[in-house]
């Protein structure tokens, strides 16, 4: 049985597969010194390559390779990188340590439906049995491509050699370590409850996939949504400040950074989609700082003003984060009375509601189709 011991390699590794070897080698340059990389065309990929890789990054369009293929039967010809990923995944022995698969393409919109028009990587990945889909267009990646690839490969490398499902304590310790949840934090217990509420795959799914199912759960169902982790916009809404001023304060104001540092998510994929914050930690913190009046507007405002004068208070009764017609979160918070709840297909039942502004819903057919209707008379 082939085995890949963590100690045999000093860093995570990726296999880059492209129909153009030149393009694959060019991508290697992005990771030089930070990841071990192997660049191959599809024909040259070996079993050993798959065994050694934490992440296989595959180009979506493989026309250059397909044109040269002599094989005539369609069953032997993966049409694109998505199909090739499935073929390569099928070559991975289940007893090996896990290997993640991701697409890399300038044409992710071909894999997205008609709505929304801007591709959403976690949806593409989820619907195509991939861990992620990276875009070659910088604007379509929420974080720099190279940083995301490194984080994903590193996350896979951090998975335990064998998932400890039969030992509940050990399993919890493993998950806690992967999530970077400090066991001594006063809010750790309540954080665990919120994690459990989001149905992490900790048993048979994680065992069968050596923990890859756990990473997928993070990538596809947790990080993109407001759950036990908040993004900076959600945090701004909770603090009743503008997202812009909160981001600026986190960059420039040491007092704000220091105050919120204990609650920044620092587990695997820590900044894969941008900063994330422990919701339980924030709520615990605010309850203390406002003398148990963390939802009272005045008490919260007094605390925020004391924290930093640079934070801009917003004067809304109930601020919520809203999505635009591309289902991308907007930076301007809206009062819930001016918002309509949406129910996109990918929205987890355990996440906070999704919203769009009333005016955007009125103007956009796609958003209208996702709006939750509340006033239907029952029979």
């Amino acid at each position, binding site marked *: 049985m082939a085995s890949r011991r963590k100690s045999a390699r000093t860093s995570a590794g990726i296999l880059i597969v492209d129909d153009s070897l030149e393009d694959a080698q060019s991508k290697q340059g992005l990771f030089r010194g930070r990841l071990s990389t192997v660049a191959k065309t599809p024909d040259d990929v070996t079993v050993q390559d798959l065994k050694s890789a934490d992440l296989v990054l595959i180009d979506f369009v493989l026309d250059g390779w397909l044109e040269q293929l002599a094989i005539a039967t369609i069953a032997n010809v993966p049409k694109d990188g998505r199909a090739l990923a499935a073929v390569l995944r099928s070559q991975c022995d289940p007893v090996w340590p896990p290997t993640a698969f991701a697409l890399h393409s300038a044409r992710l919109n071909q894999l997205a439906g008609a709505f929304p028009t801007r591709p959403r990587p976690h949806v593409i990945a989820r619907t195509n049995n991939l861990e992620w889909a990276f875009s070659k267009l910088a604007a379509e990646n929420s974080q720099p491509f190279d940083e995301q690839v490194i984080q994903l490969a590193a996350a896979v490398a951090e998975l335990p050699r064998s998932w400890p499902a039969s030992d509940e304590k050990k399993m919890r310790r493993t998950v806690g370590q992967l999530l970077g949840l400090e066991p001594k934090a006063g809010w750790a217990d309540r954080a665990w*409850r919120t994690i459990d509420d989001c149905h992490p795959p900790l048993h048979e799914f994680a065992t069968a996939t050596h923990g890859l199912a756990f990473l997928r759960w993070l990538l596809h169902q947790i990080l993109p949504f407001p759950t036990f982790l908040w993004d900076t916009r959600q945090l701004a809404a909770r603090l009743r400040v503008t997202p812009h001023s909160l981001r600026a304060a986190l960059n420039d104001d040491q007092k704000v950074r220091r105050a919120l540092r204990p609650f920044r998510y620092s587990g695997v994929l820590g900044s894969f989609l941008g900063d994330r914050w422990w919701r339980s930690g924030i709520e615990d913190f605010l309850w203390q700082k406002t003398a*148990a009046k963390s939802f009272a507007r005045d008490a919260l405002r007094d605390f925020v003003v004391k924290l930093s004068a640079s934070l801009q208070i917003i004067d809304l009764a109930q601020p919520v984060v809203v999505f635009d017609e591309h289902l991308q979160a907007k930076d301007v918070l809206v009062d819930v009375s001016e918002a309509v709840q949406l129910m996109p297909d990918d929205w987890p039942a355990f996440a906070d509601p999704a919203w769009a502004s009333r005016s955007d819903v009125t103007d956009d057919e796609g958003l209208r189709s996702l709006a939750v209707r509340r006033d239907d008379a029952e029979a």
Partner: protein
Amino acid sequence: MPGLIFSIKELLDEVNSAAAMTNDFLDESSQDAFSELRTQLENIRYQHIDKTVEWTVSQARPIKTIPSTGEYEASSKGYSVYGTLSSVWEVRRIKPTKKKDPAKQFQLTGKASTVVKIFRSRTDDLPEAEIAMWRMEVGDDASPGCHFHVQVLGHDEAVPFPKSLPVPRLPSVMATPLAVLEFLIGELFQERWRKHVNADTHATQRWRSIQRDRLTKLLHWQKTQVDVKDGSPWSALKMAKPDPELFALV
């Protein structure tokens, strides 16, 4: 006598099942109220603040129903109204046996009031207007009148029911803000709510279990109070204060 004791876990279950069960009857803005109730309960449970704190549905962000166009009457004829609910409970967590453990219960220490308001919806001819208001309250040691009672209006000196006249205190069987919410929705959507709660969902099952247990205990307690050999059964009930453990889980 100290105030009533409630299980935090049971209240969390009650909040969650109420949120699921009432979703179709509430304005979208109400979802935050449930989230806030939940978070406050978790804060009380986990934070070692051993003083009175508030468990609230803010008056500024109340739970709000969708409009009822006459569904408050069997004939379903009437103008459009909607209801709001806000509440304040003053509570103190009960220290667990092991200091570092989360608290399992809290105790009422003072105010326990749930305010319901009914608004006539705006029309072409008429502006929106508050047309009814009542408060469902759980009394404390010093409060006169039935321990569980309803007061109509009484928040200022406007007549009828001015603040300076705190009677009548009408007897009630609604113990918690969420039970009051069910009452409100049941009043505004008479037939629709009745049909809705007959659906056997997980949320309804859990709700039924909690409310049946609590109502059974409350009604049994009331029954024992009226079983008097002398004086007036009603006076006996009116003066009675329940044991703080009335709703404690066995």
